[in-house]
């Protein structure tokens, strides 16, 4: 269990990493920008090309990627506590499936980007309400029931997505595939997601020690003074909202929500007071770096960032898993 001082030190280091990753994202790209250009561009705002590129293109994209990565990692960490299952990720309860159905339906109808986002959010919200309502049905809100309902809804959404893909005209197929794999290039306004990330961490932290108990079992948590039904509802609502906003903003980017909480758990332990903010910072940084690679690696061609997150994450995860000792000090 980390002391408060150590927790702050870890978070400070991760915040530094986040700052560096955003700075790299702002500098990297086909139009050359130096680190020296960064401060003036972000500050007073001269009307140089660098300022325009940074403020108009790279900053929204980097901030959006950071916010979405953070939200997904935070949602994943919360879902793993809620379902007390290390395999849980933000998408396990069908929220991204619902969002995908909404977004692809909007694309199929040829609607504008704003409507794609709106439909995605509506779809995510519908899936969330459906899963919660059905799982809650007979008042026995068990994990198995919640998980099963979510998996079934996700499977149903997957079928609808496949249906839409198979009847979609060739011209729209590429956009749909990019949406499905996650694409930070479509982020228009990143600030709501960032605001939600900050508010979300602030909302989750006061409950963090109760989440520690919840991850050890309902009976234990309840016997030690946690109002289990209430906190489960709060966690479900928060995790769903984070996921819905992240998916609406940048498509269903895989891997971050599952792997980042695990990476952080191996690195800093399973105390939610540290794990939740650490996951948010690390998830954000990882997505910013992945997105920077995605748009520079084979430029001018852009790769879907979801592919990059997986390609980066899998070896790192396996490496850490391999060298993890039996006990932690």
């Amino acid at each position, binding site marked *: *269990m980390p*002391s*408060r001082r150590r927790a702050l030190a870890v978070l400070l280091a991760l915040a530094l990493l986040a700052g560096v990753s955003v700075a790299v994202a702002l500098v990297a790209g086909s139009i050359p920008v130096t680190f020296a250009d960064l401060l003036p561009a972000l500050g007073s705002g001269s009307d140089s090309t660098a300022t325009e590129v940074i403020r108009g293109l790279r900053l929204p994209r980097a901030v959006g990627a950071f916010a979405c990565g953070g939200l997904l990692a935070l949602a994943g960490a919360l879902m793993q506590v809620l379902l*007390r*299952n*290390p395999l849980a990720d933000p998408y396990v309860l069908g929220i991204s499936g619902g969002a995908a159905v909404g977004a692809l339906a909007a694309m199929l109808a040829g609607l504008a980007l704003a409507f794609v986002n709106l439909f995605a959010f509506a779809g995510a919200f519908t899936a969330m309400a459906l899963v919660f309502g059905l799982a809650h049905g007979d008042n026995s809100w068990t994990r198995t029931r919640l998980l099963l309902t979510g998996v079934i809804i996700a499977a149903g959404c997957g079928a609808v997505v496949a249906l839409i893909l198979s009847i979609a005209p060739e011209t729209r197929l590429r956009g749909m595939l990019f949406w499905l794999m996650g694409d930070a290039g479509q982020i228009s306004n990143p600030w709501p997601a960032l605001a939600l990330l900050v508010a979300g961490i602030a909302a989750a932290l*006061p409950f963090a*020690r*109760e989440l*520690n*108990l919840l*991850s*050890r*079992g309902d*009976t*234990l948590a*309840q*016997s*030690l*003074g*946690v*109002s289990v039904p209430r906190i489960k509802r709060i966690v479900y609502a928060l995790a769903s909202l984070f996921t819905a906003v992240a998916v609406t903003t940048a498509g269903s980017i895989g891997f971050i929500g599952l792997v980042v909480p695990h990476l952080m*758990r191996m690195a800093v*332990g*399973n*105390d939610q*007071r540290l794990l939740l903010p650490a996951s948010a910072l690390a998830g954000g940084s990882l997505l910013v770096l992945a997105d920077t690679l995605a748009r520079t690696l084979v430029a001018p061609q852009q790769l879907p960032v979801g592919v990059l997150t997986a390609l980066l994450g899998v070896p790192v995860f396996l490496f850490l898993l391999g060298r993890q000792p*039996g*006990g*932690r*000090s």
Partner: protein
Amino acid sequence: MSALLTTSGLRISIAGHPVCDALDWQVVRGQHWAVLGRNGAGKSTLLHTLAGLRHADQGRILMDGESLDAIPPRDLARIRGILPQRQLDPFASTVLETVLVGRHPHLGRWDWESAEDRRIALAALEETGLKDLAQRDVLTLSGGERQRLAIAQLLAQQPRLMLLDEPLTHLDLNHQVALMDLMRRQAGSGTAVVSVLHDPGFAARYCDHVLLLFGTGTWLAGPTAEVLTATNLSCLYGHTLHELTDAGGQRWFVPA
């Protein structure tokens, strides 16, 4: 003497099957009660109901003079603690971290565990003989070690009423005796203890009071000397038991 736990007219049932009916019962500070009954008689259900983890069908439960439902969860967790039958560990965690979880009800929303909490946790590990394992991962513990860890966690919680559901599970004989001695010391310092036990011999040796649950809703409660008889136990288990007395005057019950 003030009663820590009082039930009046308490009725509990599991899926229509009665556990106890019209239970009027008092547990006073410093007492150690044994709860005996056949498998499925509802011993765990009774403990969970007394702990406020499930609702009774009828009747009242007073905890420290206040209605159980009216006590906020965190306050309740400082009055009573329960040792569940099974321990779950879905994620890795050290032994010390797991004990410190017991300090939760004593900490404010923004508090972190203090040096004092750590001292209490280490003392609890010392009491249960786990001090050398403080940094071990709980996932590597044996069944008996895990059970002692759960007891250490309960000690760290420092409740005034301890509800123990089969505390001797997984423990070797030496650890069984050590645990019952520990609970005797707890009772001696004013804690009330209620233990679900399977061996009437342990109840006779360590508990000053006994509650028998017959599985039909009927019950019998009172001082060990009066309630714990071969006749009552034969009726309880549906199998004839003989009473033996050893050289030290200790009573034991053996099945015929």
